[in-house]
């Protein structure tokens, strides 16, 4: 449900049912809505049983990569004598994405419960929720929810009277897009610069404080209580009948040049065309959609025609040349200078590069400079080839994928909207050449 919109009849409200309902924010209100029933149930089960149900449900990571959650959890070996950790990635900073923010604003206890279940399932006694520093309201709500949960005995060394230890701590970030990358997040949490780490070792082997760690997105964790309460079969029903690989509901954040921006929750596989025109109200009066970025700014740009043929699930987006990513849908219409927006996206990555890897540090900066030069009317036709070449050198060659993410909108933009770039280049400014002194 796209707060402040009223829910559309074609939405499926599971995670967003209580968005905009101020009574659901506090513990009492949350309990009245069925809160903490799933945690109580989970603490009576064995961790392996919980992992089994989540695996069976087909739930996949909602942060961007789409890795099956139950499989990820099963990498955490029980009884290895080491402390395990759960990190909740609430460093939502992929441009175009603002779903986790709404989850934490309106239903903070849903996340506390999801973290508690997740921690118990992977044999961890501590879960850290890493929230980006800019989300002041989400931070306040989450801190208050944790405080209430401790006071009510839900969290602590005797969680819900079971004698089990479950801690959930909120950790405030300090402004760095890269900390949404899981290994950078762990470094940041440890009190270091947020530089991504080389993998392997993967977090399940040596993660936070060198111990086995699982990192899950906010939306992934809040889906877990629903799966435990209603069963894996119930969750699997949401999706395209011909695609069992993508199950459940997904929150899509919609922004840019569109009638009704906001968050919408639909079942995976929902037709993108209906989503854009029916749920979100279509383009602004007298305009047309030109380019659509469906999964946050890091995924390839789609043309309007491509987007209109896409079913909204992991496989559907890939089959249509892009990715579901974080579900941040950015709409750019025909009144915009698309090249300027791609340049702006590149500048974002240049600003956010941690500068560890040369390809990224140099590549993001030069990509931005060249694009800004084209926008200013000083571009050449060779610039496009240079950009594509830089893009190739930035892809698959660095510690993390920030570099690839910068190259993606640029490369796909040039491939699909080359005419826009060439039009700007043709309009090249004529610079006065000073007369030679004889």
């Amino acid at each position, binding site marked *: 449900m*796209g707060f402040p919109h009223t829910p559309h009849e074609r939405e499926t409200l599971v995670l967003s049912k209580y968005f905009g309902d101020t009574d659901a924010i506090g513990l009492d209100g949350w309990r009245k809505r069925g809160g903490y029933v799933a945690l109580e149930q989970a603490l009576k089960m064995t961790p392996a049983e919980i992992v089994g149900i989540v695996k069976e449900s087909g739930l996949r990571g909602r942060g961007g990569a789409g890795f099956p959650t139950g499989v990820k959890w099963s990498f955490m070996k029980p009884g290895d004598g080491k*402390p395990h950790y759960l990190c909740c990635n609430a460093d*939502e*900073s*992929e*441009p*175009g*994405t*603002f779903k986790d*923010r709404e989850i934490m604003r309106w239903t903070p206890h849903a996340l506390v419960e999801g973290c508690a279940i997740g921690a118990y399932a992977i044999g961890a006694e501590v879960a850290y929720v890493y929230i*980006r*520093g*800019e*989300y*002041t*309201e989400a931070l306040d709500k989450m801190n208050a929810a944790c405080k209430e949960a401790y006071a009510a005995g839900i969290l602590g060394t005797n969680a819900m009277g079971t004698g089990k230890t479950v*801690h959930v*701590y909120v*950790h*405030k*970030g*300090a*402004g*760095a*897009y890269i900390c949404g990358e899981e290994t950078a997040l762990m470094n*940041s*949490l*440890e*009190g*270091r*610069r*947020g530089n991504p780490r080389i993998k392997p070792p993967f977090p399940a082997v040596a993660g936070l*404080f060198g111990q086995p760690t699982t990192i899950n997105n906010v939306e992934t964790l809040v889906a877990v209580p629903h799966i435990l309460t209603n069963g894996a079969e119930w969750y699997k029903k949401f999706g395209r009948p011909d695609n069992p690989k993508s199950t459940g509901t997904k929150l899509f*954040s*919609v*922004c*840019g*040049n569109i009638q009704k*921006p*906001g*968050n919408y929750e639909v079942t995976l596989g929902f037709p993108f065309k209906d989503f854009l025109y029916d749920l979100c109200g279509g383009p602004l009066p007298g305009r047309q959609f030109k380019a659509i970025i469906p999964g946050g*700014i890091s995924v390839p740009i789609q043309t309007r025609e491509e987007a209109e043929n896409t079913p909204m699930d992991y496989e559907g987006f890939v089959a249509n040349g892009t990715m579901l990513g974080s579900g*941040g849908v*950015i*709409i*750019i*219409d025909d009144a*915009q200078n698309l090249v*300027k*927006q791609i340049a*702006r*996206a590149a*500048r*974002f990555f*240049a*600003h*956010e590069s941690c500068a560890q890897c040369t390809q990224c540090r140099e590549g993001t*900066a030069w990509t*931005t*400079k060249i694009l800004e030069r084209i926008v200013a009317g000083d571009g050449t036709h060779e610039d496009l080839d240079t950009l594509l070449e830089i893009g190739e050198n930035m892809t698959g060659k660095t510690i993390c994928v920030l570099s690839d993410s910068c190259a993606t909108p640029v490369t796909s933009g040039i491939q699909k909207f080359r005419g826009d770039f060439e039009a700007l280049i043709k309009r090249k400014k004529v610079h006065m050449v000073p007369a030679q002194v004889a």
Partner: protein
Amino acid sequence: MTHSEMGGVRAPGDVAHAEHGSYTPVFTGERRKELDELFTRYPTKMATLLPALWIVQEERGWVSSEGMAEVAELLELTPAYVKGVVTFYTMYHQHPVGRHFIQVCTTSPCNVCGAEDVVNALLRHTGCEELGVTSPDGKYTVIEVECLGACGFNTPLMVNEKFIESVTPATVPALLASLG
């Protein structure tokens, strides 16, 4: 790209990165208790570095060299290490900023909805000469910030710790008046 285009804040010419006069420690009384409680949450003292720096900034409005040194000693780190971490993140101020620190999101989703017009309106109405430079009366500092994560509520901005959504050039004067 210039420093201010990258979202940086320019230090006023006459202010060093150190506080004037004698330094009074931040971590005394309640604040010290708060830090001790934080120590119990993590297996290392170093993990409390970001929260500790936030406490310094909440108390002083910025993180000075002395503040970094105090944190370093409490967390058994070196001041150089702490500075390395402080400079990595964009939200710690390394010198004083205006009373109202305004961060406007101008990343692509907000940009296509007119965020640059909001920035221009803010510069005009605050008397700030340019981005990242505090207004002559010391009241305002305006910077561009990368994605605030409120892309559906254009244009979002932050004034200190307060998040304000759906700002347009027309609502800027009323917004500034409400800040006082």
